[in-house]
């Protein structure tokens, strides 16, 4: 009887160990093997946003470059959860530092504690190793769009350096279709991408095309970015379109974007 008891307790001990530590086995740092609850995150966030009642003034947050800044993410979440009137958060890429699943899970484990939804676009660091597959499985398509409260939001991959400036990134034909096909009830067009068009990581051959696409749209147009790790805001091409770049999370700042009839207001804040 005693040997049998020892076997059973031994098995139980092993089972407890195996089940108690989530993701205790790693086959490779490069694995893309997402647990349940870590897939199609942008689609779920967009559904939550679109279920919100439409407002005359929409307020959302722009953050960027969370790469390996986990304690800052914790502080940002705690700070924003005490702030009212915000509809959602946008993360302008470089979610991870090395394009690895473990990092992406660590980031989402923090941002999912936000009381509001968040959407994320892909950054250049997120394209390292198997990062593109990771992003697509975890967040969804690299280029995406959705409408809410009279605003057309577009997320797009602008990390041209990661594909050797092949001309395929950013996908300007797609962007044109999203901008021009937005519909008559759309008064604001907001494009969110990691690499700003004036950065060396963006394809020089496509820079003017990107800027012109935005410039010739009606209504309010904004282009939101990350990557540069310092914040800036400027009409880079003197064409009525403001390019807003948020700092990396370790700088502890973000932008609050308010969109209202006929205009917008942008404010940088700290946490």
């Amino acid at each position, binding site marked *: 009887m005693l040997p049998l008891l020892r076997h059973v307790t031994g098995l139980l001990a092993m089972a407890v160990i195996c089940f108690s*530590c989530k993701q205790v*086995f790693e*086959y490779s740092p*490069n694995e*893309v*093997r997402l647990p349940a609850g870590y897939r199609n995150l942008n689609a779920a966030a967009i559904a939550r946003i679109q279920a919100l009642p439409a407002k005359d003034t929409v307020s959302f947050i722009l953050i960027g470059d969370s790469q390996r800044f986990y304690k800052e993410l914790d502080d940002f979440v705690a700070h924003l959860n005490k702030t009212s009137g915000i509809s959602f958060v946008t993360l302008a890429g470089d979610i991870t530092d090395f394009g690895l699943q473990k990092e992406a899970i660590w980031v989402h484990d923090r941002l999912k504690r936000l009381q509001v939804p968040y959407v994320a676009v892909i950054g250049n660091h997120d394209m390292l190793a198997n990062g593109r597959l990771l992003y697509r499985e975890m967040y969804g398509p690299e280029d995406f769009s959705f409408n809410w409260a009279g605003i057309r939001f577009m997320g797009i991959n602008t990390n041209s350096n990661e594909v050797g400036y092949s001309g395929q990134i950013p996908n300007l034909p797609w962007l044109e279709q999203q901008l021009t096909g937005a519909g008559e009830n759309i008064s604001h067009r907001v494009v969110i991408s990691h690499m700003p068009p004036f950065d060396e990581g963006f394809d020089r051959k496509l820079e003017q095309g990107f800027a012109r696409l935005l410039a010739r749209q009606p209504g309010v147009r904004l282009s939101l970015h990350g990557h540069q790790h310092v914040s800036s805001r400027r009409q880079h091409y003197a064409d009525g379109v403001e390019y807003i770049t948020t700092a990396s999370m370790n700088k502890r700042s973000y932008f609050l974007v308010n969109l209202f009839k006929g205009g917008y207001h942008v404010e940088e804040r700290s946490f």
Partner: protein
Amino acid sequence: MLKSAVFSCLCLSWLQGYTQLVPVSLPQAFAKGWHAKAQFAGSIGFLSLGAGRSGKKLEADLWYGYVPKSLGGVPIHAVTAKATWLPVKPVYWKGVVLRPLSLGGFVSYTPGSQYFLFNPEQYPFDYYSYPTAGHIGLFAGGQMAIQPQKMPRLGQWAVYYELGTTDVRVASYFTNTSSLTLPDLFTLGFGIKRKL
């Protein structure tokens, strides 16, 4: 996760049955010579096969590890060089022979066009200051010798575990100790070794 946990439990419980049978003589259990190993997880593959040489307190092995597409998203191959230091002499305990402490490290290379050792030409000089094709790891663990009584011709076997970490986890944890926790730093690997 469930599949790997069940697999590990089944392997360990099967081996545990054999350890009840006969003690292994102390000198033979961890003798010098060539060995072959097979490992589950431990960041070098879903399943990895290795071969190498054991001394009194040192082991060195070369590995090939594989993660199939169904478990890694893409097929992942890895070639790893591992060194293990066993500073404590074999201990005879309750019918088994233990090497209760192992400390070691590994260097692993993953081939594939999506990884690089040196920044490809498209980037400005040293845009990324680290290789994505290579990883290094550290671990601590233990080994236990087993010898099936009814099949002495099967030879000298040992089972081992490794509680390990990798460069990415270390770089992330030590810059975020107030946010990440020790379970974020470590992963588990199990393996078996046979003297050749």
